[in-house]
């Protein structure tokens, strides 16, 4: 939660930054800081989610530890960011999930497995001929996933709304003359949102100053960005694969399994490959992460989500490869359990960073347009 101590410390750090301003060329966080005089909870939640955790401002900081001011912006932002996930999470009593990520993941996995086993049709002795619906009947599968999806979407939508309300309660930016009039203008809202989405989808602010992502002091490489792209776009392709398959089934009445060259399988295979490469790369990079940049051990928050993505993809691809064989039923059950676990943890894990960061980017693009006008 965004406790008094965290907010007080965040205010101190941001006050030093605002009096210094040397980092203003790195990313949107610092221009946003410069347009504020005080840093309350809403400001900090906004700034922390605007921060892409590139780390560059720590190495550039003349006040970084062991300086007596002890300024470590990435670490402070990390703490505020995780606290903001908890603060705005729905339902509130599940906010502890973020700090107990491994337990959350295990419980979700168990829930997924139990649900699939309960949903499983009566076995017919392992002769499925690649037909998933003989293992879990189609209607049962649809009902199960619709229920999970409904819950997850509700939690995410409410969480986002709470976050938006939270960051709207910031202290008044110094210059905001034309803000109210323009914010209600649909065209203005659309163009600023489009620009923000574009910045988010290209991870523009992960590579500050137009060069590579920062691994450590004076060590920059493009890998973090590329692995994130592989992960995110892999996820998108897998989602597209499922959507196309659903259309095939509902609209055209074409039943799975689909051929290896069919659209759902091609999308799923490419996306699945992305979800193998991206997460393993991100995990490998984590090992080389500068410990100075992290506060309390938050690694489980990142690694649980990354691991779930990887295992969901791995089981999915194995299922594809071995679907004609005897292991299909077992693989399907395991894969579906991972999919359910992945979805159940979306609102209570690292996934929410994408939603909050996009919302922060949208706020930033709108805010910025009032500075220059």
């Amino acid at each position, binding site marked *: 939660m965004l406790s008094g101590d965290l907010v007080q410390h965040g205010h101190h750090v941001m006050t030093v930054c605002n009096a210094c301003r040397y980092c203003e060329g790195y990313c949107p966080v610092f221009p946003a800081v410069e347009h504020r005089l005080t840093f309350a909870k809403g400001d900090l939640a906004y700034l922390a989610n605007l921060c892409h955790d590139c780390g560059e401002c720590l190495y*550039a900081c003349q006040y970084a530890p062991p300086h007596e001011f002890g300024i470590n912006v990435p670490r402070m932002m990390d703490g505020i960011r995780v606290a903001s996930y908890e603060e705005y999470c729905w339902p509130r009593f599940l906010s502890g999930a973020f700090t107990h990520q491994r337990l959350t993941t295990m419980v979700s996995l168990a829930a997924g497995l139990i649900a699939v086993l309960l949903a499983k049709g009566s076995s017919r002795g392992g002769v499925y001929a690649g037909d998933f619906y003989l293992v879990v009947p189609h209607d049962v599968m649809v009902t199960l996933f619709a229920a999970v999806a409904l819950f997850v979407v509700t939690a995410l939508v409410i969480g986002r709304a709470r976050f938006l309300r939270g960051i709207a309660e910031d202290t008044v930016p110094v210059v905001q003359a034309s803000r109210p009039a323009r914010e209600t203008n649909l065209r203005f809202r659309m163009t600023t949102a489009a620009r923000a989405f574009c910045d988010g989808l290209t991870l523009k602010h992960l590579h500050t100053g137009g060069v590579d992502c920062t691994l450590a002091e004076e060590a920059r490489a493009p890998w973090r960005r590329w692995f994130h792209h592989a992960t995110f776009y892999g996820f998108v392709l897998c989602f597209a694969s499922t959507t196309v398959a659903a259309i095939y089934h509902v609209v055209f009445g074409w039943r799975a399994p689909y051929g290896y060259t069919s659209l759902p399988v091609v999308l799923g295979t490419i996306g699945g490959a992305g979800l193998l490469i991206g997460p393993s790369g991100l995990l490998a990079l984590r090992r080389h992460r500068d410990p100075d940049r992290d506060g309390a051990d938050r690694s489980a928050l990142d690694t649980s989500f990354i691991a779930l993505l990887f295992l969901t993809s791995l089981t999915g691809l194995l299922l594809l490869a071995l679907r004609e064989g005897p292991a299909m039923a077992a693989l399907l059950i395991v894969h579906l359990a991972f999919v359910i676990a992945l979805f159940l943890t979306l609102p209570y894990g690292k996934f929410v960073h994408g939603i909050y960061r996009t919302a922060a980017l949208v706020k930033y693009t709108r805010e910025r347009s009032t500075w220059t006008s």
Partner: protein
Amino acid sequence: MSHDPELFDVAVLGGGNAALCAALSARERGARVVVLETAPRAFRGGNSRHTRNLRCMHDAPTDVLTDSYSEQEYLADLIRVTGGQTDEMLARLVVRDSATCPAWIRQFGGRLQPALGGTLQLDRTNAFFLGGGKALMNSYYAAADRLGVRIVYDAQVFALDVVDGRFGGASVVTSGRETVVRANAVVLAAGGFESNLEWLKEIWGDAADNFIIRGTPYNTGTVLKQMLACGAQPVGDPAQCHAIAVDARAPKFDGGIVTRLDSVPLGIVVNKHGERFYDEGEDVWPKRYAIWGQLIARQPDQIAYSIVDAKVARTFMPSVFPPMVASSIGELARRLSLAPAALEDTVAAFNRAVQPASFNHAVLDGCRTEGLTPNKSNWAQPIDAPPYWGYPLRPGITFTYLGVKVDDRARVIMTNGQPAANVFAAGEIMAGNVLGKGYVAGVGMTIGTVFGRIAGREAAAHVVG
């Protein structure tokens, strides 16, 4: 470092911008270079870690500089701020070479901010380091490491072996052990003496106890003192320093940029007796902030208080320390440990003396007082809108002017008028050649870069040929 003294081609004493430019420049020419940095790694980079830009001549807009800044204009600026206390030949050299500094910075991995008009409206004359001076130093150190420059941290040079202008070695304490570093040439780039409190007291007496040192605690002037003792010709006023008004709550050392206070021209400044002592609105703040360190240094107990009211509270850069806030002048005086009656009298007299005019903090608005000693020439408004804000101020020393005289090849000139054979100097330790007094933003980094490169080049040429 081994007990067996290794012989280097070039020893660089110091670890800031000038030192690294010298090391990189010498290394580029094939010399075996050692850099002896007094500070530990975390605080490497001398005062350069607190800088943020470099003043740069250019004939046409570039990606990092707007418009143009001609040789004549740059030189005229230098002559103006120094009141002519500059070696024009060296000043011209700095100005001309400054044009190539952005390319040099980039060659060694440094990054510059695109010219967009940031915090300070200096984009025409100054190229800004992305992330500031510490980021630039990180780039230089990484490049030096990559190119095979030997870097030693925590290396305190305490004696120089220079006989008849010829350097033989430097005695160094490193990791608690004394060694002698021998090299065929030496570049002195160890800064001034602003963090040597005893030296400051020799000049300013007990007043120096109340000075705040804005930069590194490692600029003790040891190398400077040694070289002067070895017969180098001094340059620059030994009793002068660049000092600004900083928040009295700043740390003794290394507070850097965030301890400065820009509220002075918007209100009044009083001493410990609650009395005004100088025209706060004499000129725009960028042209006047550098005199306030000296002004406060001459006040009793070297302390002063900037007082503003709610009307202007949001028109200056926020300070890192919160203001003392009060709803009346008397209460503010108590919070600042001033005599309430004295401050009330001063404010009342000031308010009565304010002449009607239209206030505009962005220009010389002519809002002034009449009949006061001293008067305020601009931005004078009655201080009558609570809450009142007060900030305690102390002199904050940026750098000292005393240095060693050099020629256009960065060779140290000895008292007999002859250049030393293999002793070169760059940066603050010789900046007094160009900057006899005064200051203009970003010129220290230019002098350091230009003379660092020359010193490294000449030292390498001396050794490698």
